[in-house]
């Protein structure tokens, strides 16, 4: 409803004074009656509401200035242009607000469709995605249910027999230089085991091995290979410069393969859809437990259910809390299905 309150500002003040409560009642009724028919239906409703607010809001503003919407169907383009210029120059603040809101609404609509399509309709682009889980730490005193991992806690948790494989990852922004204008790139810094856990293969070249962890190598997303490297067939083996460090491209992922999917943690959205992947060096020093800045995924071992995995990581969390009271008192661990986490992230955004 907060989003609709923003949309409602497209209507002129007098119209809002008269009908704002009614508009909000109608939207609340609409969501109560139809908002439970699935995420896709709810997304369609929001697209319709956004479009309605933009088109009718502007029409009401024109009507308030004495021009009935739809009247004078044949108006020259030049006359419309002059009118637009006068409107913008006479009330630049309002014009900027409308342009901003139009941009917001259009990008929101595009984002809603894109994200719903990518996350809710298509299965996650990994092998047996229903066996993938996110691992989280939790710190109840601060009500942090989805706290990132410290490397040392993760090293203990990944030993759980419930998992067939685990991987630690985090996001990072870098600047690509040496290819014309400097370009910002989004990177996922991932443990070498990640691609094996996901069950994905390289389309070109190869993916990381544990031997790569200390090397300056990158794997490109398919989208970055197409968009930023112009589908260069010789890109594998090529050296690129990221944050002034030369790194060798060792592989390219297949189309549609991307990690992580949209995931929220502690009220924030984890950066998804990276341009490239870099190896993560896990800090195995058991004494460094206070720095929580990475995320963890795991694949459940054959025959292991979510409850069994939950029970095992909870026991590990309790053991660490007893063993390292300075850093781990009140810290426990839990597992959540990966797809459910993505859907929750999208629901929150919608």
């Amino acid at each position: 409803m907060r989003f609709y309150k923003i949309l409602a500002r497209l209507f002129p003040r007098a119209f809002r004074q008269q009908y704002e409560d009614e508009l909000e009642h109608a939207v609340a009724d609409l969501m109560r009656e139809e908002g439970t028919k699935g995420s896709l239906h709810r997304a369609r409703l929001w697209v319709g509401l956004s479009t309605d607010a933009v088109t009718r809001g502007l029409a009401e503003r024109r009507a308030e200035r004495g021009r009935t919407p739809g009247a004078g169907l044949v108006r020259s383009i030049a006359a419309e242009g002059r009118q637009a210029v006068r409107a913008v120059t006479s009330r630049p603040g309002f014009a900027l607000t409308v342009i901003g809101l139009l941009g917001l609404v259009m990008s929101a609509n595009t984002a809603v469709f894109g994200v719903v399509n990518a996350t809710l309709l298509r299965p996650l682009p990994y092998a047996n995605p229903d066996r993938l889980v996110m691992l989280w730490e939790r710190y109840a005193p601060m009500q942090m249910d989805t706290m990132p991992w410290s490397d040392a806690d993760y090293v203990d948790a990944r030993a759980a027999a419930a998992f067939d494989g685990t991987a630690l990852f985090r996001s990072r922004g870098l600047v690509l230089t040496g290819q014309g204008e400097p370009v910002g790139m989004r990177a996922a810094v991932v443990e070498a085991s990640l691609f094996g856990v996901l069950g994905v293969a390289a389309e070109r070249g190869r993916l990381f091995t544990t031997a790569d962890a200390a090397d300056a190598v990158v794997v490109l997303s398919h989208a970055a290979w197409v968009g930023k490297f112009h589908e260069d067939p010789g890109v594998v083996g090529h050296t690129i410069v990221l944050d002034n460090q030369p790194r060798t491209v060792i592989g390219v992922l297949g189309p549609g393969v991307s990690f992580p999917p949209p995931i929220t943690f502690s009220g924030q959205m984890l950066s998804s859809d990276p341009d490239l992947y870099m190896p993560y060096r896990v800090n195995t020093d058991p004494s460094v437990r206070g720095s929580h800045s990475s995320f963890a995924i795991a694949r459940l071992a054959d025959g292991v259910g979510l409850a069994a995995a939950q029970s095992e990581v909870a026991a590990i969390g309790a053991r660490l809390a007893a063993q390292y009271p300075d850093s781990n008192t009140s810290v426990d661990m839990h597992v959540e299905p990966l797809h459910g986490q993505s859907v929750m992230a999208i629901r929150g955004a919608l």
Partner: protein
Amino acid sequence: MDLNTASCQILLALAERDLHGYGIMADVLERTAGRTRLWPGALYGSLKRLAEAGFVVEIDPPKSAPRDRMSRRFYRLTAMGRRALGRELAHAARDLETARARNVTVKD
């Protein structure tokens, strides 16, 4: 005042009983089998013009309205609105006859 499709649908919804905004939206959606959805902005923009033209009036919520609807505005079709709707539908009916006479198959 010329009646567009949204206005006709609103008047037709109110021809049966007094309704609040969402009640009108729901009636139109159901009656048109989902083909016509009145979004809130279009609905209240149309209701504003229909009220200015004297075709509908705002009324107090009926005593039979559920408690959570008591704060809503209800609308009632006026005699003038009923006549205007009748005229518009008569035009539509004439167009329908013309279409049939010209071998246009009229069906959903």
